[in-house]
């Protein structure tokens, strides 16, 4: 596994974990996340990183 694969994997893991945590926080406390962050962009970048990981495999 190259360094770029490791970084890509870590980005994907970081974004995915963060997305999960933020969605849980938003579902428990509506407005606490969406008032400040647009999770759409987060989701798109996470999806792109996942696609790139699959493509590299």
């Amino acid at each position, binding site marked *: 596994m190259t360094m770029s694969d*490791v970084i890509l994997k870590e980005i994907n893991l970081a974004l995915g974990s*963060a997305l999960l945590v933020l969605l849980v*926080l938003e579902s428990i406390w*509506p*407005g*606490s*996340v*969406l008032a*400040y*962050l647009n999770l759409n962009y987060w989701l798109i970048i996470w999806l792109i990183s996942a696609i790139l990981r699959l493509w590299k495999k």
Partner: protein
Amino acid sequence: MKLKNIRRLWISALAALVLWLLWQAIVPLGSITYKSDLADNNYFIGKLSPSERVEQINNRPTIIGEPVYFSFFTPRPFRTAKLTMRFSGTAPLVEIGLRRDKTVWSYEMKPLYSALLEKIKADENTIIQNDVFLWQKNRRYETIEDFLKTPPPFNSVAVYRHPLPFAFSLSGSARQGATKEQSLGLRGAYQFYTYSDGNSLAFDFNVIDRNENSDPDPIEVIIYRGADRVFAQSFDDSVAKSERRLSIATPPLPAGVYRLELKANDDIVTTKLRTAQSKIAFSGRLWLVDAARENIILYGDGSRYSAQTLNPSSLQTIMIDDQAFAISETYEQFSLSIPNSERRLKRTVLPKGDLIIASDGLWSFTAEQFFNPTVRSMPPVSTVAELGVDYLVAKYEPVEILADGSFEQSMEFDLRGAYREKGKYSFMISAPNAALSKEPLNIKEIKIEVLEPDIYDYVRRYFERN
């Protein structure tokens, strides 16, 4: 090792982000400010709506119809909101209101701008003490205290947000000989004034629940004397669609004017009212049901009228004495102004029902029932010539004029008990005749500072209690 460091880094960043979001939501220090220029989408302060009453000029909302509404989101409830609005342009009278009630769309209104009061603040006939204005057509009083101690005749005064010590006394009997039944056909909430001569107040309301929406439809009847609540009775929702009778009877009440408020949502129709009271005068809006009703007659003493219908079959021309008032489109609010400084009683004929009508005066279904125990309110006018009275008493804080010529005004609202749904409070901007103004009302910024005792206060009070 490097991977471990990277992982620690993003986990720490995520934890910091979550803590920051929680800090913003909890507001442990007790106050936070939200602001919006209304040009871009803002999660906390919503855009002005409905869109047909707002025009975008230079990327700023300009009010061309009224009222308009905006929402205010907070992640948790707060105790107080200090709202500051920066705006340009004028309108005779602009007020901002906070919605208080879930069932009835009632708003607690506060003044933002009054063209008349801004104009007369430098007038030699105006006395100002602690934001209380007293304007006199012919100077008779030297202080506001003199005026309040020996007020002039009831009909020569208009007030704005300042109570006056007038005690209304009814000439004639407050009760008619026997209990009488009259058709009302009123949908939703309404309120009326009546008079007790020392007896109890008793009313029977025949109501029907249309059950058009699945929400519960409780009904509450509240009687006020001035600002004091003297009687209240609640009625649960009824599943049955058939007509039922709701009866209320108070204990004997001191002689005087009382206001009865029937709080219900728009699923409830009051078909009939039975009472022995001789005086019943409705205030605020009336939703007269049933498009098939013909020639509904009302008696009122208003100067400013508004009407709207949601039903194409109810498009009509209302006659207020000999003045025609055309309602030619659905879902649009029409307004009419008829100078009536003497508060002369006018006969209003509505050819069809299913119409919402309101005025700045009172209404009765018969001329004999009509009376007006209220002091005249300051109308939304810009000059004293349009006032039609000899005295004006108002509680008003003049706007601050900024360096760029725009205005700024602040006001505080108590948020406790205010209507809040999904984290949003609802505000209204009322600006009658705004569209007629030479300089349209343009909102530049809304800033809302919310306040709550901070965490240290909670902790201190907890230990004080225990």
